[in-house]
């Protein structure tokens, strides 16, 4: 029996304000599973919950309800210093992550892996001038070929960002106001009404790839 690579199981995260009469200010809900290696595109406006979702999947943020299970292990019950052996979050720039340590290590599970199984890339800087995009995309493909699960989070503000997603991703998740919309390919992603509203003119702009014969 093989556990799915990632099972986000009835995950809920809420943020509230007010000490006595708590009022919910943000609510993220996610429930999906990914059985094997894939490259998943994650998109959504600022403040929609993309980074919160990544933090929950890597165990650096605690859920209000539900759980995240990576290859059969509940990430929030894996030793703090071994969680990134299961799922690693590559931030835009170096940031030190703080885990709220609640349990001593001996009460927790080992990661059982030396190199992360799930790689979450949070808004990598894509610049068409310097050529690094090509190396990054090859690297995502290499991880995928080595049976890893790759998440690529992009906040598209130029047409080539969409080209990149289309070229590399096998499925998509669109996050808006804490709600996830799933799409099995690029065409069904851009057919989603909230995605069309979000991308607007980017969808009709000419691709940089056109007219090159590639």
């Amino acid at each position, binding site marked *: 029996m093989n556990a799915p690579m990632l099972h986000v199981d009835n995950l809920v995260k809420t943020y509230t304000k007010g000490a006595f009469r708590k009022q919910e200010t943000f609510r993220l809900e996610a429930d999906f599973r990914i059985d094997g290696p894939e490259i998943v595109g994650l998109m959504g406006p600022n403040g929609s919950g993309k980074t919160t979702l990544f933090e929950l999947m890597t165990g650096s943020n605690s859920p209000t309800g539900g759980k995240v299970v990576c290859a059969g292990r509940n990430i929030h019950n894996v030793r*703090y*210093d071994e969680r*990134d052996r299961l799922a*690693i979050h*590559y931030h835009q*720039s*170096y*940031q*030190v*992550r*703080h*885990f709220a340590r609640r349990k001593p290590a001996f009460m927790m599970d080992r990661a059982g892996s030396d*190199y*992360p199984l799930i790689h979450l*890339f949070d808004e990598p*800087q894509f610049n*068409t*001038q*310097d*050529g*690094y*995009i*090509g*190396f*990054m*995309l*090859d*690297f995502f493909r*290499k991880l995928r070929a080595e049976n890893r699960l790759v998440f690529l989070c992009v906040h598209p503000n130029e047409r080539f960002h969409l080209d990149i997603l289309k070229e590399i991703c096998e499925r998509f998740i669109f996050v808006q106001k804490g709600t996830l919309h799933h799409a099995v390919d690029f065409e069904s992603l851009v057919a989603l009404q909230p995605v069309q509203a979000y991308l607007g003119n980017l969808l009709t702009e000419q691709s*940089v790839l056109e007219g*090159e014969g*590639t």
Partner: protein
Amino acid sequence: MALFEARHLHKRFGQQVVLEEINLSFEEGRLSGIMGPNGAGKTTCFNVLTGRYKPDRGQVLFDGEDITGSPPEKIVRRGISRSFQIMNLFDEYTVLDNIVIALPGIRKKLTNPMHAIDADSEMQDRAMDILDRVGLPGRARTNSKSLSYGERRALEIGVALATEPRLLFVDEPTAGLGADGTSRLADLIQSLKEHTTIVMIEHDMQFLFDVADKISVIHWGQVIAEGTPDELRANPWVRRSNLGELN
């Protein structure tokens, strides 16, 4: 067999993974380049390779011997030298003296009170040879603080060469140089290549594509691509960029 090899290097600072599963190998007689965007982990990688930081996991091999975690001074004695992104020179001394101080065997002579370094023609000749190689023979008697930026870079490489390394690490040599300085530096590096195995970190991709035999691209603390400049240039996104043939 590679002259220098890094296997499965891993390094964390606190909770932050800075190097993740780095594998590199540098062949004797070649110029190997390391490039990557800002904050990719290039300098940390260099610091682990040259013994400034100890990796949490993994191995560094020089000439088949494990040198992981050896202190920098022991690594230098084995024949590995490095120049820094931030230049380390003795400003109050002449250009020639900066080289002489770095020559092997100088320490023994310095501790002998009867020995005058100024009058040691063997040492002076060796230092002059090095200044010739880095293109500074006319500046031997100049105070190093009055050198231009590009000349300081060349002198710093000279200081590294004075230790007679089998392997020279160079960190961002073009940093702060204009177009003219960069092209002179490219000539210098090309001529050094004939005698010394070089590993160079460089931010300027064009420069590295011109001088390197092999390039490793580092990002997210990992080697994300590797190949000859021609192989890397074949990537469709590189062809579309400033480096590509489409421009």
